[in-house]
């Protein structure tokens, strides 16, 4: 019963059913130069061997030289510690975002991916305010609002100089915080507002590839929340507040799964593109009490979807895919750098590595 309802949802406004790439992409000759440039840059993705080599480096200077050789920004002139190397990563991220903004003919879309960092920074600043901790090191200054301005706005609780989506998000978080005082909700509510913002911009843009990507992001976020709430036996109210609207699977279809056996959850998703993700993720969770395989499978689903943009020769899709795939690479590099800074053994670093292209 549940599965048939899900299939109905999949044939609706934003289908996520698998289909040939021919129907997924729409050619846009305005992106001819941009795609040519991106194709060249795609050659510089770090490979698994490169990450292994980074793990094997002994000194931070050696890792720095390696990253620069692989096309990373030169960063601070004097790299002495592993933590200094994060400056390379920050500058590289800024460069990638600036490049995509320059190449994009649709600024609303390229700005949207910078707004992602505004939401991240807002989340960090709100957490810092409510917990009284100093979380400055977690801020990433590549959003549309400079970190100083956002910090000042949160400190003064005055958002008049910030974009509307910032003040809206703060209002939602503040209202809920006063009622519950639950810090976990800051993440959940900010992410929910971020996806609302994404839906607001991407849906009217009418690009199938981006629409499906957004469906995947929201669905996978909801699946992870459902599994977490179910496994940790958290309050059902938390699930109600956490599920994000706008994906291909309606929240009303996910709520009942909170109370059903794990087999029913797997069977519910078995006819969708999330079948393998959910089956592998929940199996591992039941056997080893770890959410990591589910997280990794979700990333694999997203990465393999983004890699389909390789067949699109003209359009915004290769730009978006490059930007997002590069993010996965940055996460992997950062994991190694943090591991190196904390003197973690190589094997542990390998286990902690997130998925990357």
């Amino acid at each position: 019963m549940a599965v048939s309802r899900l299939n109905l949802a999949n044939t609706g406004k934003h289908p996520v059913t698998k289909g040939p790439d021919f129907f997924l992409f729409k050619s846009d000759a305005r992106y001819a130069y941009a795609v040519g440039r991106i194709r060249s840059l795609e050659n510089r993705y770090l490979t698994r061997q490169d990450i292994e080599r980074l793990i094997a480096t002994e000194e931070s200077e050696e890792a720095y030289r390696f990253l620069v050789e692989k096309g990373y920004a030169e960063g601070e002139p004097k790299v002495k510690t592993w933590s200094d190397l994060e400056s390379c990563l920050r500058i590289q991220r800024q460069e990638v975002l600036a490049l995509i903004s320059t190449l994009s003919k649709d600024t609303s879309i390229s700005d949207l991916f910078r707004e992602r960092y505004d939401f991240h920074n807002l989340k960090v600043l709100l957490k810092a305010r409510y917990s009284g901790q100093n979380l400055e090191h977690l801020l990433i200054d590549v959003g549309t609002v400079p970190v100083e301005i956002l910090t000042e706005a949160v400190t003064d609780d005055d958002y008049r100089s910030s974009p509307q989506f910032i003040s809206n998000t703060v209002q939602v978080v503040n209202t809920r915080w006063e009622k519950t005082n639950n810090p976990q909700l800051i993440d959940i509510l900010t992410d929910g507002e971020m996806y609302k913002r994404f839906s607001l911009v991407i849906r009217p843009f009418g690009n199938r590839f981006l629409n499906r990507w957004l469906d995947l992001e929201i669905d996978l976020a909801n699946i992870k929340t459902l599994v977490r709430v179910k496994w940790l036996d958290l309050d059902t109210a938390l699930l109600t507040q956490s599920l994000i609207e706008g994906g291909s699977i309606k929240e009303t279809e996910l709520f009942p799964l909170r109370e059903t056996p794990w087999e029913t959850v797997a069977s519910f998703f078995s006819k969708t593109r999330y079948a393998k993700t959910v089956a592998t993720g929940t199996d591992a969770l039941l056997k080893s009490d770890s959410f990591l395989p589910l997280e990794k499978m979700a990333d694999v689903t997203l990465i393999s979807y983004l890699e389909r943009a390789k067949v699109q020769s003209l359009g915004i899709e290769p730009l978006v895919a490059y930007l997002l795939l590069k993010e996965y690479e940055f996460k992997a590099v950062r994991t190694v750098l943090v591991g190196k800074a904390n003197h973690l053994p190589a094997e542990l670093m390998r286990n902690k590595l997130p998925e990357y292209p």
Partner: protein
Amino acid sequence: MGGLELALFGVALAVFLAGIGSAIGVGLTAQVANGVLSEQPDLFGKALLLTALPGTQGIYGFLIGFLVIMKLGLIGAPTDVPFYQVITVGQGWQMFASCLPVAFAGLLSAIHQGRACAAGVEMTAKQPDQAGKALVLAVFVEFYAVLGLLTSILLIFRNW
């Protein structure tokens, strides 16, 4: 409208349409090539071949235009009674129709070849050793422009 005007209208179509197709095709490939060359300037030679390929349709259109003008006797060695002075309206229509295969086959094949070449340049950026394969695949589109050219030539040089 007389026969001469109709024939010259055909010439104009052959040159304009095939030329427009080539301009679009070459323009598209050149933009992709510029993007690739901004990061990999050493690929210029390979990108050049793929960029030039959609330009051939414009040459075919011009060739047909030139042949029709020759056939009409507007240029070349003078004859006692040049064809353009005696061409009938019916022959004018026939001459006009002779120009259409290269005009339309040139227009559409150049645009689509441009897209094939643009994708070929992208492929070359990732695998420079495979540029030859990209060129061969793009040449398949050329085949249909050549058919248009041959049909136009056969029609122009039939027994009038």
